[in-house]
């Protein structure tokens, strides 16, 4: 191909391309450069591109054989291209860098504003202590609380010369400038500063401030005003102390009152016991006389009786015997509680002794149409007080007969182990509700078995059983449900000791 054609084509392409580039340079937005650089860059870029528009246009005219008149100017104009291009690129580069710097400045400023807001709204004080001992930054709180000073607006802050931060224990102040300037590490060190005549408790913390190489530049110091919290703590401690003293005094007063009351109750109780003992004793003698003379009359020794008189005398005797039993119970309980009785152990054949008691109570059982049985091993001998043991068994059997309806059954069963023996009295009477199990063993307490039925006796029988069993070194237990009968088990040692009650 003819080189002239190729050159002509190349020149034409160059002319068109640079013309388009020139048009673009003149019309395209250059906002990224900023308004102050945009016009300069656009102008010089247009000039630079115009150089090659002119050069390529001159070449097109020359190679097309139209004219070479522009060729003389072409060389001089072409010299301008590279310097203009260099200027354009350089200015654009500066424009980009200025834009980046502006953006970074805005970012730094916004971050600074954010940090300043955080620091100023923080309830604690924050300071930067340089290695020269100057406070290069102090938050509002730090300036207010520590009353920082500075000679003029451009000077750095300083701690008041007379500032003392006293520690609760001997040690160096956490606000010591030398320590902080050297890069101190402190964690919640409590100290008290006196400012304007007012004491404030501060909790001071500090961390070393270092540069990229690890060299210490000073310290970052933070502190929290603990005055209110400490004051509240002190107030609480004082209130606790006052309350403790008040409580102690109240307890002492109440204790004294209770001791006085206890003494009065003891005195009253002893008076009651004396009264009961005396009254019971004084009642027993005439009761025995009444029973004796009733027997005399009933026996016809004072003359013949009509059947009606005999019947009424029988009622007098029964009531007298019942009353005597009550008086005896009262005397027993008083004797036990007063500790006047003595256990007199002796060798006892349990089956024989208790069997005799059961035999004696058979008429009473028969009178009430109740079957009374006994089951006991032969030759069971124990060392115990037979009178006290019989008193317990008698009360239990008597109780069982009292609360068992006609045609019921009461059994006395005796069992033994190597060390103990037990007397179990079981009936199929009205039973005792579980919630009353403890109460039935208390003196003068009786349980209503059936609605509307008045309890019989003094309410001392089971209390006497419990006390006497305890004196004999044994225990008494009750198993019962309301309406399902009751089982009392008295367990005594096979060898009781001689003890006073």
């Amino acid at each position, binding site marked *: 191909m003819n080189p002239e054609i190729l*050159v002509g084509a190349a020149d034409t392409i160059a002319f068109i391309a640079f013309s388009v580039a020139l048009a673009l340079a003149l019309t395209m937005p250059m906002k990224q450069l900023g308004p102050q650089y945009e016009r300069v860059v656009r102008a010089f870029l247009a000039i630079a591109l115009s150089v090659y528009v002119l050069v390529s246009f001159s070449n097109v005219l020359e190679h097309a054989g139209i004219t070479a008149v522009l060729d003389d100017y072409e060389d001089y104009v072409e010299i301008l291209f590279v310097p203009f291009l260099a200027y354009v690129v350089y200015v654009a580069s500066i424009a980009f860098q200025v834009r980046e710097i502006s953006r970074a400045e805005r970012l730094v400023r916004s971050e600074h504003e954010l940090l300043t807001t955080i620091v100023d709204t923080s309830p604690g004080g924050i300071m930067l202590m340089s290695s020269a001992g100057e406070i290069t930054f102090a938050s509002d709180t730090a300036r207010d609380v520590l009353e920082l000073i500075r000679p003029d607006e451009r000077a750095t802050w300083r701690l008041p010369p007379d500032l003392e931060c006293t520690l609760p224990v001997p040690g160096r102040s956490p606000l010591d400038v030398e320590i902080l300037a050297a890069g101190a590490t402190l964690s919640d060190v409590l100290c008290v500063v006196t400012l304007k005549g007012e004491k404030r408790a501060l909790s001071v913390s500090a961390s070393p401030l270092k540069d990229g190489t690890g060299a210490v530049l000073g310290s970052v110091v933070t502190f929290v005003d603990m005055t209110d919290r400490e004051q509240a703590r002190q107030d609480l401690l004082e209130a606790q102390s006052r309350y403790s003293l008040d409580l102690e005094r109240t307890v002492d007063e109440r204790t004294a009152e209770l001791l006085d009351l206890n003494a009065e109750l003891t005195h009253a109780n002893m008076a009651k016991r004396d009264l009961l003992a005396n009254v019971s004793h004084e009642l027993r003698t005439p009761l025995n006389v009444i029973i004796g003379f009733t027997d005399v009359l009933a026996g016809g020794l004072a003359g013949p009786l009509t059947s009606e008189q005999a019947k009424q005398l029988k009622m007098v005797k029964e009531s007298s015997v019942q009353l005597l039993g009550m008086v005896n119970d009262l005397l027993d309980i008083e004797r036990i509680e007063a500790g006047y009785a003595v256990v007199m152990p002796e060798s006892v054949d349990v089956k024989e002794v208790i069997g005799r008691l059961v035999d004696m109570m058979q008429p009473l059982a028969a009178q009430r149409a109740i079957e009374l049985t006994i089951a006991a091993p032969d030759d069971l001998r124990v060392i115990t007080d037979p009178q006290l043991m019989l008193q317990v068994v008698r009360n239990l059997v008597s109780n069982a007969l009292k609360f068992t309806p006609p045609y019921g059954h009461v059994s006395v069963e005796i069992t033994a182990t190597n060390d103990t023996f037990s007397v179990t009295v079981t009936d199929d009477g009205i039973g005792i509700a579980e919630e009353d199990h403890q109460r039935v063993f208390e003196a003068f307490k009786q349980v209503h078995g059936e609605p509307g039925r008045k309890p019989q006796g003094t309410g001392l029988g089971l209390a006497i059983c419990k006390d006497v069993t305890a004196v004999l070194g044994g225990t008494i237990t009750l198993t019962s449900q309301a309406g399902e009968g009751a089982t009392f088990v008295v367990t005594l040692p096979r060898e009781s000791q001689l003890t006073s009650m």
Partner: protein
Amino acid sequence: MIEASEVIDLVMALVLTPIIVTSLRTMPSARRRYATAGFVAIVVGYVFTILEEFVLPEALNVIEHSAYAVAGVLAVLALLQSRRSQSGGGR
């Protein structure tokens, strides 16, 4: 015969190349690529303008003018790229 203006063009281009290249580095990569290539094409044109006086005058003359054409096309591409990125809001 070599003309003085052609030598001056080349010398100025070579002298200013470090400034141009260094400045181009701060610009976004797409525009930098086209602009750098366009500048290189211009310099190549300067070189062949001088070389054609010594060897292969016709062939090197074709290359010289072709280099200018390529430089023009690359300048258009660089400016289009710049306008596209600005209209997109990016760099």
